[in-house]
């Protein structure tokens, strides 16, 4: 029997697969979708897979750049990115959290020097890749909700 897709295939764009179940909306928030884009976006949540439940996001007519991919890794460390052209996967890779996150997340500590008017970008050291945990390079605090602090 042919498997039926929950969301139809897209002709061109990006499919973000293997998002931690329940985090698809946060992924969209991080990517600024739909505000920053007029693309059609399809979201499937709690989709059954071999490795348990997952979320999937399909963004039509948009290819994510590496900077955006790193942002996703903060809340969906197992996600994979598939670039689609003419219904075929042209490139596929897993998101990878770098050792340092610069200029992506703001520090949750209001008295951290990185929140003062100083000529520096926010900087976080990744202390755990899965689950993602980051620590402010300046004040050493961990943000409680990373997704909330995405710049």
């Amino acid at each position, binding site marked *: 029997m042919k498997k039926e897709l929950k969301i139809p295939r897209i002709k061109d764009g990006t499919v973000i697969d293997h998002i931690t179940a329940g985090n698809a909306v946060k992924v969209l928030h991080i990517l600024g979708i739909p505000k920053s884009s007029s693309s059609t976006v399809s979201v499937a949540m709690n989709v059954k897979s071999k490795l348990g439940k997952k979320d999937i996001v399909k963004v039509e007519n948009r290819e994510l750049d590496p900077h955006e991919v790193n942002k996703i890794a903060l809340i969906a460390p197992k996600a994979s990115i598939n670039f689609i052209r003419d219904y075929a996967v042209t490139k596929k890779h897993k998101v990878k959290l770098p050792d340092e996150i610069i200029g992506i997340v703001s520090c949750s*500590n209001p*008295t*951290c*020097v*990185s929140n*003062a*008017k*100083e*000529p*520096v970008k926010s900087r976080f050291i990744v202390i755990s890749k899965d689950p993602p945990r980051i620590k*402010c*390079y*300046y*004040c*050493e*605090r*961990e943000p409680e909700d990373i997704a909330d602090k995405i710049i």
Partner: protein
Amino acid sequence: MLFFLIRMDFKGKDIISIKDFSKKEIDYILDYAKDMVRYAMGEKYKNVLGGKVLSSLFFEPSTRTRLSFESAMNRLGGRVIGFSDPSGTSQKKGESLADTIRMADSYSDAIVVRHPHEGAARLAAEFAEVPVLNAGDGAGRHPTQCLLDLFTIRTEKKKIKKNKIVLLGDLKYGRTVHSLAYALSLYGAELTFVSPASLKMPNEVINECKELGIEPTYTSNIEKAIKDADVLYVTRIQRERFPDAEEYNRVVGAYKIDNNLLKNGKENLIVMHPLPRVTEINPEVDTTPHAIYFKQAFNGVPVRMALLSLVIGGKL
């Protein structure tokens, strides 16, 4: 002795957080500080840092840290420039910390900085070529206080390991206790935390202790806590760290150390305090053998002499 053959090179190193140092490096600093004691007391003199200049930038009030750094530099033959009140500086005109640091960097051989923002010293180190020594950054780190506390415990108790140490008071906002809990865990001390419920040690500090193999115990009962303690480390409930006056008023005066309470402790229990104290230690304790806090404050001089000598590059 192999230890004395090894010279660790600290020249140019920033002193930002106690976590930047290994136990071996801390031991090396403490050993060197011990050699500095007679020089710190003025009994001996050597022109270790003659011709060198230290920038002392205090954006927040300080008595002991600033004076002991300045004393340390003077005792080593160096000179000090700087300010203890930023109102007379270009910060008032809106100058960034980064720019102030760039200036001090070009005027001196090392920079000591105290600032109300957490992470300020780390930022300063990014903009300075010369070594930066953190003299306290907001509610964050205070590594030289931590080193002088370790030095005091080691001097008074001969070792740090296995001592039963009670940290009392404001464990939430108190910057000295966070660094100290980490460092004491590194040495394998046994820790008990005593505080009002609203001023408990933050979980991230407790987790750091656990990662180092120390399982701190928590109680709000000071009488019980000091029974078998070797060290009682008292901190002030700091009004300036509280977001609102109501919370401060609720907890200030929660614990008071007096001779009556100390009767519950061991004869050789030592009482430490980073100072200033307000009401948390009754002055009657000052004249008892338990009171180590003034000696502890003096220890800031040899420890800071050791650090300045090491990072600027003078030899005793």
